[in-house]
């Protein structure tokens, strides 16, 4: 993803002029531990890191640590970074329009430091020594030299210690941990060229190799078998991995879309992916996907929401169509994989079925009930193509009253 900061004037951090600061909607960015992780991880990515290590304890309330090997900050920049509206990534509102880095608001670090005990250690790649600062409730407690490698390490402890109200709003530790895991997983999938590693409560959750291979990153976040089964999407503006019809999950959470390298939440674009699967999935089962979408920066507005997760497109229809088309092609052209259980055990092994030749006339969702003649057409050949073992494939939840003559192209196998 093109995100060099050669385009940004200089790496020095400077306080934004008030006018500019006002131009940015100040919102609440730090509402839960996952938000802290998100901000710190984005800073690390923007710093050009090749390795990012995330560690949390007690669901992020006791400790959140993010370590990176990016370009670091020198002793002048480090303390300034924690002041409100300080950022290295913008000089004027004009820059907002062509912004290519993930973070730019200049609020996050300050917001975090306002509600926690923060220790940041950094050493600049440009030379010089390591430096450490300690900040509590927005106040700089300590600043001193320290021996450390090039890069940045931020330790956030006792989050929300001074805002008990926000503590009460946190969910169960398991839920908060799950959010953090998913967040870091999505970062890892969106940035396969960076080696991400995540430890939760001393337990090693995953680590990606950082070789640039999306599939390898996927294997680390999910598992090797699933990764091997995923289908490649390789269009000019949409690239990534999507699941074969036989693999699905119970929620929409597993469709990860990145626009210009930025993870976004966009219901409609997720629908675009699901559309490509029409006729190939049950209504309550959803695909897995990681898709990098490239859009001209001038065509997309990122300053829509404080968390920068939501964006507005100049021409959303075009983006929608591009995504749907890319997924559709991938599904049609790749061999259809199936998961079949070997006899007598839960072990799954992959077997390739023959390519479904010709375009199956995929039924529209409305006619999903039984509108397709199971004996003819390309879609039906999928059933015949499955081979003798198909007969015992476990039937999916027949929550919609489908009988034995449901369309043959609906896969049966349970997801992992």
């Amino acid at each position, binding site marked *: 993803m093109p995100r060099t900061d050669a385009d940004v004037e200089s790496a020095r951090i400077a306080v934004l002029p008030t006018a500019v600061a006002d131009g940015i909607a100040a919102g609440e960015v730090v509402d839960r531990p996952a938000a802290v992780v998100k901000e710190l991880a984005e800073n690390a990515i923007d710093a050009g890191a090749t390795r990012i290590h995330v*560690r949390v304890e007690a669901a992020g309330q006791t400790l959140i640590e993010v*370590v990176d090997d990016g370009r670091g900050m020198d002793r002048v920049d480090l303390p300034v970074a924690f002041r409100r509206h300080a950022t290295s990534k913008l000089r004027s509102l004009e820059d907002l329009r062509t912004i290519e880095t993930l973070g730019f608001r200049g609020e996050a670090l300050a917001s975090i430091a306002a509600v926690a005990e923060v220790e940041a250690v950094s050493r600049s790649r440009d030379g010089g*020594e390591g430096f450490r600062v300690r900040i509590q409730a927005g106040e700089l407690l300590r600043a001193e030299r320290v021996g*450390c490698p090039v*890069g940045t390490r931020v330790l956030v402890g006792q989050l929300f210690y001074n805002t008990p109200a926000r503590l009460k709003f946190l969910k169960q530790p398991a839920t908060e941990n799950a959010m953090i895991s998913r967040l870091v997983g999505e970062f890892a999938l969106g940035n396969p060229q960076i080696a991400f590693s995540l430890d939760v409560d001393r337990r090693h959750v995953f680590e990606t190799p950082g070789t640039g291979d999306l599939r390898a990153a996927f294997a*680390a976040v999910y598992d090797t078998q699933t990764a091997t089964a995923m289908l490649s999407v390789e269009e000019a503006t949409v690239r990534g991995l999507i699941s074969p019809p036989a693999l699905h999950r119970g929620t929409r959470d597993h469709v990860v879309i990145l626009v210009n390298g930025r993870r976004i939440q966009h219901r409609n674009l997720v629908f675009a992916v699901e559309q490509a699967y029409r006729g190939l999935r049950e209504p309550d089962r959803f695909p897995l996907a990681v898709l990098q979408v490239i859009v001209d920066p001038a065509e997309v507005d990122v300053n829509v929401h404080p968390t920068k997760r939501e964006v507005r497109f100049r021409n959303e229809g075009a983006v929608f169509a591009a995504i749907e088309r890319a997924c559709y092609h991938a599904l049609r052209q790749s061999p259809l994989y199936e998961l079949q259980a070997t006899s007598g055990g839960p072990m799954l092994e992959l077997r390739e079925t023959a390519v479904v030749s010709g375009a199956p006339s995929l039924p529209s969702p409305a006619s999903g009930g039984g509108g397709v003649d199971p004996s003819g057409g390309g879609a039906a050949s999928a059933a015949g193509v499955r081979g003798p073992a198909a007969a015992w494939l476990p039937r999916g939840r027949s929550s919609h009253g489908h009988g034995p003559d449901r369309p043959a192209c609906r896969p049966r196998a349970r997801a992992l």
Partner: protein
Amino acid sequence: MLFRLGDFYETFGEDAERAAPLLGITLTSRELGKGHRVPMAGVPYHAFESYVGRLLKAGLRVALCDQVEDAAAARGLVRREVVRVLSPGTVVEDAYLEGGSNYAVAVCLRSHYHGIAALDCSTGELALLRVEPTDEALRDELVRLRPAELVASEADRSRLLALAGSTPTNWVDAQDFDARAAVDRLQTLLGVETLAAFGCDEWPEALAAAHAILRHAERSRLRLEPGLLRLHAEHPRAFMHLDPPTRRSLGLNADRSPSADDLAALILREATTAMGARQLRRWLDQPLRAREPLEERLARVAVLVADPLARSQLQAELRGLPDLERIAGRTGQGLATPRDLQALLKALRALPGVQRLAGRWPELASPPSPVALGALQSALASALVEEVPATLKDGGVFRPGFDAELDGIRDGSRAAREWIGALEQHERQRSGIRSLKVGFNQVFGYYIEISHANREAIPSEYVRKQTLVNGERYITPELKEKETLVLNAKSAMVAREQTLFSELCRRITAAGKDLLDSAAWLGELDAVTALASIASRHRWVQPTLRDEPGIEIIGGRHPLVEAALGPGRFVPNDLRLSPVNQQIVLLSGPNMAGKSTYLRQAGIIVLLAQTGSFVPAERAVIGLCDRIFTRVGAHDELARGLSTFMVEMVETAHILAHATPRSLLIFDEVGRGTSTYDGVSIAQAILEYLHEAPQLRSLTLFATHYHELTALAQQLPRLRNFRMEVREEGERVIFLHQVVEGGADRSYGIHVAELAGLPRQVVVRARQVLSDLEGQRPLERPEASAQLSLPLDHPVVAELKQLDLERLSPREALEKLFAWQGQHAAH
């Protein structure tokens, strides 16, 4: 000696007295002959392995004396024979072994060379070496091999006793060390005409040792099967030499046990099979000196680093594999169990899958799977049931339909049992006696029981056997016939299965060579996969190897310290050593600043590079070294009556005597343990010697706490000063852990003492004393010293001074010269 007595293995006499406290069993006694009591102690048969294991760990040899004929059939005393002799170096059962190699080593002392033969009975690996005829050379190899047991000639006892230490040693007849007999024996066992291909045919010492070790194996009742023995000769010049202190300081001593935490443990943990772990251990213990095999190994690792997905698939395939080498070994000994064979079948089934996966890369290509293995696989698959029992003793190992005779026995037995089962019904109908019963007891076997009331209706062929209160019990000839069939069937079945099993084992042994070749390939594959895993996880890079001496490391890290500190805390450092302009790096600075870590990581990086592994650095260019020497850490060997300083000097002397221009020398704080003046003087003299002596010029890392030595840089052009960067903020000292150019200008000892928590009063006073001392008697800067000359207190010079030259005859003079040459040849 353990005698089998019923359900126990018993020991007698002295054995019992020794065993009882060792094993925690009761010492009792037993009468033997008239009124003569003999001490006795025993262990239950079903649990004997754990007890024997304890005896072996204590270094004892154990002979198992089992009953060799059926107790029931015997007349008088049951015949017993020694069926197995177990000693720590000759066991092959998994119960007594850990994962690593287990060597029995024979040592042959001769004048030109010493010969060593190391045999791992459990895998059939036989390594022959020959070393310089010195105690040191022998000791170095023995430390590397970690033998479980030694075999040496009785004649060499006095010389080797100290070296053997606590290793169980068998002192055997000198005649066992017979090189010519060894050649014959090995040629037969390996099925070759000549040993020339192995490169050891000109090593009589090693061959003699080989014969001794083979004899020892035979005496332990081990079978030496052709095809299951693999011989390789190790040429010392091919490997980088690492003496025991170096091994220790670089962290090479541990095994796979999870509690170990040094470098070897870090690496060995990554292996997924026992074969792979052993191979990795061998690679680590013997780093290579030649560039080509190293580049080839590195290429294999690189390929697996680049494709993490395929690598994890490969590891998944390898993970389930059993220890093929050990199974083959046990099968050859006739000690395989049904589970062993089942594991072997599983491995054979998995092999093609692994080959296919690995086949993606030409670098990892495997030898084509020989036809023999395919046939073996079919044979095993058709023979064994799905879930074999642990032992043969109750049968049930072989499938129905595999062997006609076995099926016949089983069918006959089943038919007979069915007949008996149906008998009751049948006889009731036939005789009309409704209350007729068929039963079985231990005394009479099967019987037909009829109550007195029905006495009249008894068929004529019934024979009365037993009378009860309410009735009688009868047998019939046919009943007895069927009974015999059933009772004998079991033992007949077991006997037949044993025969079939032995045949299967024979087939396996016949395919031994192919099996071991495949096992070796799998072991290497696992080893490179393990190296790739570590490299990928810890961000190690591929080193560039050169033939010319010189080391350049950018961003080097100590793998263990880095892992212990966690991410983002270890400060990487560069290192440059070149014989041309930076031969000696003199590193000064306070303790606790990371000097030792820096020194060790240099050694570790070079070691790893020459093992064919990636290294923990950003970039590394390594000129291949012939040896790494370290003099690191002050470990007190007071137990051996040596002081710290003495040990230091002994090790330093050893280094100076053996280093070459291609060696890497690492000195950490030489001169500790003696007075400051002495220490500085010795350190300076050593540095000058390293710099000037033409046979040295070795690349050297020298850490010192004497900052006075930094002045040497002015007179020794290839010596450069570096220091561990330290910053002071007021009274506080901050360690930056960064190596920078320029020497330290002060010692920070007092600061470190303060950090360590010495009372404030002590620290303040120490500062006062220091400034006093520095004011009064500044430690003199080392002067530019004179040309290095023959030290005037050399023993030869001393003798020379004593000689009365006027009265010495030419002949005596010549003899004196010869004597000196002989004594001081090393110098």
